[in-house]
């Protein structure tokens, strides 16, 4: 039942109980409709809330994880070549491939209003549109990790030309550079909109999504059985920065705009997420419960992405938030 219908039911109930309906708007207009108090035009939204559904937050998670797995693959490749690190590179590339070249594109296509036209995303390149830049980053990143995996398989075959190994390194470098961009651009995507709770944080969101992606990639690799001091250090760093970002978002006051970050469904999701990726993951890691820390971080990262979309929906629907951001 929509807000409007709920309101209409309230009016009917009041009329049934008291024989008449009172409220601003009823007397002067002579009509039966009381005017509900609300900012702007009868409390109706000024901007449109996002139409995106469950696919987008999940994509923010898988894309962030895959992108940062690419960065880990590059660092491990450069730091190599102990055998353990080589197998870490391989697994990180697989994560990047599954996340960045399989799951993320499928989620993005599913979210389109007209999925069969997904290739229209590559009709043009518009640097002023974060959606366009992001589509190209994802496309190129997916290509790079796919190439890196194919070249890895080829390089171990007897008689493979030495150029294969060079090309593989090039592919890993490209993936390692585009990957972090894939994780962080989503913050620009949300930040460059008219949704108050999003654009108020256009500087924080790229950091938050980037760090969350990095911590998720390290956590996923640890859950796959890799125990390396490097992954542990990344996990510690990501959880620490999440603690700082969480505190920053809690403490900074954007007035009515930030209400959705603390209240309602979006507030619960975001606070739960901040607790899991920040203090919970940090403490579990410090006491040595690595799988626990990894799971806490991953669950928190997923919840956080859903929290930000929910916050965007609530914020877009709230005319008071929109008006609060505008000064004449």
């Amino acid at each position, binding site marked *: 039942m929509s807000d*409007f*219908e*709920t309101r*209409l039911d309230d009016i009917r109930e009041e009329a049934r109980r008291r024989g008449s309906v009172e409220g601003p*708007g009823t007397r*002067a*207009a002579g009509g039966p*409709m*009381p005017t*509900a108090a609300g*900012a*702007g*035009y*009868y409390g109706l*939204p*000024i*901007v449109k809330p*996002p*139409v995106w559904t469950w696919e987008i937050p999940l994509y923010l998670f898988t894309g962030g994880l895959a992108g*940062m797995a690419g*960065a*880990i693959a590059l660092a*491990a490749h*450069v730091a190599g070549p102990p055998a353990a690190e080589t197998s870490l590179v391989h697994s990180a590339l697989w994560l990047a491939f599954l996340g960045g070249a399989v799951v993320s594109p499928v989620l993005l296509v599913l*979210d389109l*209003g*007209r999925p069969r*036209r*997904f290739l*229209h*995303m590559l*009709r*043009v390149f518009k640097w*002023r*549109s974060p*959606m366009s830049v992001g589509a190209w980053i994802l496309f190129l990143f997916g290509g790079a990790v796919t190439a890196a995996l194919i070249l890895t398989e080829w390089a171990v075959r007897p008689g493979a030309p030495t150029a294969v190994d060079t090309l593989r390194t090039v592919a890993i470098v490209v993936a390692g550079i585009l990957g*972090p*961009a894939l994780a*962080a651009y989503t*913050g*620009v995507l949300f*930040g*460059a*909109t*008219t949704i108050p709770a999003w654009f108020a944080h*256009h500087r924080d969101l*790229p950091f938050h999504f*980037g760090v969350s*992606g990095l911590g998720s990639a390290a956590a996923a690799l640890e859950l796959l059985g890799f125990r*390396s*001091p*490097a992954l542990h*250090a990344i996990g510690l760093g990501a959880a620490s920065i999440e603690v700082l970002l969480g505190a920053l978002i809690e403490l900074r006051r954007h007035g009515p705009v930030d209400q959705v970050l603390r209240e309602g469904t979006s507030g619960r999701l975001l606070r739960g997420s901040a607790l899991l990726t920040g203090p919970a993951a940090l403490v579990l890691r410090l006491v040595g419960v690595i799988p626990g820390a990894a799971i806490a971080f991953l669950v928190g990262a997923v919840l956080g992405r859903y929290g930000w979309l929910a916050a*965007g929906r609530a914020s877009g629907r709230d*005319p008071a938030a*929109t*008006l609060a951001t*505008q*000064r*004449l």
Partner: protein
Amino acid sequence: MTIGEGSASTNQARHTHVADGVTVGFFTDPTVCIGCKACEVACKEWNHVPAEPTAWAGTSYDHTHALGASTWRHVKFLEQELDPFRWLFLSDVCKHCEHAGCLEACPTGAIVRTEVGSVLVQDDVCNGCGYCVVACPFGVIDRRPDPLPGSGGAFKCTFCYDRQVSGLTPACAKACPTESIQFGPLEEMRSRAHGRVAELEDRGVRDVSVYDPVGTSVGGIHAIFLIPGPPSNWGLPPAPEVPTVRLRAAWTSAILAAALAVAGTFAAFLTT
């Protein structure tokens, strides 16, 4: 030019603005609007815009609520408990911004600028990504839900580009019985709007102004309104900003975040 010019007005005359590349505009004046909704109906009929399920507002007599994918003209009803009581109507429409958020956000190039300066969604290109929806500072464009015809795509006012190509006036302006909606070259619309405000002030009307945010990043609009009272009363943002103004700061953050992640990852692997 004054209100109610009849057959001599620019609303009824044929024109060659598309061929001449003249930037055109709407001027919508609620002080002569009678709330008949002929503009909404003419728009729906000409553009084959589907009907939507009725949802009773419960807050006012305006049950259309807002502009959207299937509402390209929307007559707002504003009841105000002033003395004397005031009941006003304003036909809202896509603003066809000078710097349009939807056009900048569109990743497929489906949204374009026409010869007459209007912003047009090419339905055969749009893939329904939904990014324009959150890029519009006025909450105009929206994705049309199932099961309506054309569902999945983003829709908004086309400024009747197809009619204009043939020298016709947009359907809403053509149908408006009081010429509350006027159509013509943008600069003429601007001067008419300011002239109308001056005229009303001469008559002692104090709280009218022209809604045309030229001072913000939107850079002015091609559908100008005369509004009694503050813009927020009408659900119009007082100082709309095109979302791309935040690109520089947001991308700086993203590049820093990406660089930090790469540096941190390298540090972790090379020092441990």
